[in-house]
């Protein structure tokens, strides 16, 4: 844990709202990405992220640093997202991600419109859109582990800690998730 982050956590634990807001800034995108991988819906994900940080704020005095702050926070996010999924009762049956309602803009493709994109960028955007649809077809379990590894950059030990799994299970699940994703894309003639 970085020194400055540790200090922020200590200050937030004493009720310093400004310190907590810095922590929110540090982790909000990561938490949102993770929660979004479960819910595949921006509105539901945003509500779950809000709940996550409220719970974190309430539970912060009890945080003892036994795991990293990020792991602790993502665990809260995971439980919150799973609760939301249970409520929705369509958890693993959610086949397609939403198409967007215009109220939000993509993180890495913000302000880009096809008209201003060179052909290569447009092609890349299409490939990413196809990949996103394929991710939506994966089981929640496979989608989650891919997000943790590929988007959050977690190593196997961190994933194992977060998901309460053996490292060997992380290894095999990740392999299966990759193979499942590859098979879906290949069935769509997606070139790899």
């Amino acid at each position, binding site marked *: 844990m970085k020194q400055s982050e540790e200090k922020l956590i200590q200050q937030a634990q004493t009720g310093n*709202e400004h310190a*907590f*807001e810095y922590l*929110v*800034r540090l982790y*909000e*995108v990561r938490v*949102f*990405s993770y929660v*979004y991988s479960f819910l595949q819906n*921006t509105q539901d994900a*945003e509500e779950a*992220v*809000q*709940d996550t*940080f*409220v719970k974190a*704020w*309430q539970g912060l005095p009890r945080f003892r640093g036994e795991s990293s702050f990020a792991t602790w926070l993502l665990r809260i996010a995971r439980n919150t997202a799973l609760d939301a999924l249970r409520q929705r009762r369509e958890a693993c049956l959610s086949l397609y991600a939403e198409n*967007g309602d215009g*109220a*939000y*803009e*993509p*993180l*890495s*493709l913000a302000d880009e419109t096809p008209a201003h994109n060179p052909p290569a960028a447009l092609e*890349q955007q299409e*490939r*990413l859109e196809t*990949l*996103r649809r394929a*991710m939506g077809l994966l089981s929640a379990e496979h989608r989650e582990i*891919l*997000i943790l*590894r*590929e*988007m959050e950059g977690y*190593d*196997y030990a961190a994933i194992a800690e977060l998901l309460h799994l053996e490292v060997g299970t992380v*290894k*095999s699940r*990740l*392999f299966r998730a*990759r*193979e499942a*994703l*590859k098979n879906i*894309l290949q069935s769509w003639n997606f070139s*790899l």
Partner: protein
Amino acid sequence: MMQGCSEEMKEKISAYLDKECTAEEAALVESHLAQCKDCAAFYRQISELSLLTGELPVPIPKSLHRNIMSSVKRQNTKRESFKKYVAVFAASVLFCVMLGSFFYTDFWKAKIPNTLRSADAASSESANTAQAFVLYAVADGKFEMGPSVPTADVSQTEEAVLTLDGEVAVYRFQGAEQNGTALYDQNGALWRLEFPSVHFNVAYGTDGKRYLEAE
């Protein structure tokens, strides 16, 4: 694809991509990839997927940060309100306890006329508002007002029956009967009985029982 290659090898290749192999396993994977075209293709494919997945756009809401902090502040407000509520509740309880202890005696004074510890039901039936109580002499000039059925904790050396009907009081004692007046305080609690030959003042013992003191 990858026919003949075990899943164990594929897992190792996947782990190799993530740099999660031991040096020995990495050497084994590299050696295998150099020999197996299918597995080499698998490795290229999952490498490409890994890169692409890392670039997947996530539709971060513009209002995300603001909404998170609004929720946190709302929670703080709720928590503060709850603390205030608890404080007010605690203060109210304390106030009630103090008030209760201050008026404890008066409270029972007001209550006893209506309940009067099992008033004589048979006598009560004689009039709608009438109440009858058996008086047990417990000391010189003192009578306890109690149930008509004697209980073990009440002395029965002498018995009289008092019937109350509003301000009209009837006192029967040893076959004689006297009509008198019942006086009530502003709380409606009986405090004095006046008969031609005897007056009673209502007194309350530390045991919570009511006694009539004969003048």
